[in-house]
């Protein structure tokens, strides 16, 4: 391996050195190379300074008041998730029953072709599922959309 390639490999491995992800013999070899190679040493020092600075950069702490209800909000979502599913199933069942009652005469009429009954049934069921899905989406978006009061 020529010297140029060796330096390129060393420079990549410098990441492991500054992030403390390599140890033992490899670490010693790298340090030895850095000592004997001014250009790698310069790069090593630049990376080390950058690492030190980025490591020291911290987000401002969020006031405790925001953490107080954090778990409660997550728990409520967990509970409401099941609630939404049950509510959706309930509405679909009730609306489907209502639809069947309205169209009962049509479904029980032996003169009507079976294929037409299947088509009408699936069309009605599909419309009910879509209606519930859109209704649910509208309610959920309304709940999280902070800009709903802004006139567009």
């Amino acid at each position, binding site marked *: 391996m020529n010297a140029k390639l060796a330096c390129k490999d060393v420079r*990549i491995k410098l*990441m492991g050195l500054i992030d403390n992800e390599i140890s033992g013999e490899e670490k010693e070899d790298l340090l030895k190379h850095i000592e004997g190679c001014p250009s790698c040493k310069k790069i090593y020092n630049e*990376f080390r300074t950058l*690492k030190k*600075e980025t490591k020291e*950069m911290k987000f401002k702490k969020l006031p405790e008041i925001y*953490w107080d209800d954090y778990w409660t909000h997550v728990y409520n979502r967990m509970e409401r998730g099941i609630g939404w599913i049950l509510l959706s199933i309930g509405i679909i069942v009730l609306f489907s029953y209502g639809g069947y009652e309205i169209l009962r005469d049509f479904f029980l009429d032996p003169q009507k072709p079976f294929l037409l009954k299947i088509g009408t049934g699936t069309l009605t069921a599909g419309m009910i599922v879509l209606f519930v899905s859109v209704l649910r989406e509208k309610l959920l978006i309304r709940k999280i959309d902070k800009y709903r009061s802004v006139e567009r």
Partner: protein
Amino acid sequence: MITDNEAISACRAGDKEMYRVLVERYKTRAYYAALMYTHNRDDALDLSQEAFYRAYKALASFDNSKKFYTWFYKILKNICINFVTRKRTHNQVSADDENRPELVSSGLNPEEILERSERSDLLWKAIHQLKEKDREIILLKEFQEMSYQEIADVLNIPQGSVMSRLYYARQRLLKEVEYLNDER
């Protein structure tokens, strides 16, 4: 102390309260991760809570041999990306400038504090000038404090590639810092 896997097993057995162990353990990291995408406190809180809820729903698919947080982080990242994309589409970006990280400056005099604040601005700006791929790996390493193995899991890349990706990302960051410095 209850381990992540013990808490997950209890949740799978129906003990919802045990999920609190995981939420309490990772809520700060999750919030900061979301903040890096949204730059807005309220959105970051909301999205991180939503991610915990979705992770709870998907717990059955969690592989016990993996780390919970790296698995959770992928869920959170997807939620944040969708949110940011939707906001950009609707032109509703609302970044709070105070929600960016700063260099620790406790015990310094006012002049040094100002200097560090300017340096923080420069670094944060430089990080955000990077391409998404470079920025992400730097944020995972420095602000999520992930190990190379965890980064490899999150990005679905071999552990050996983490080092080279970090090298090129940091190299470009150094160039960006230099460029911004010269511009001042």
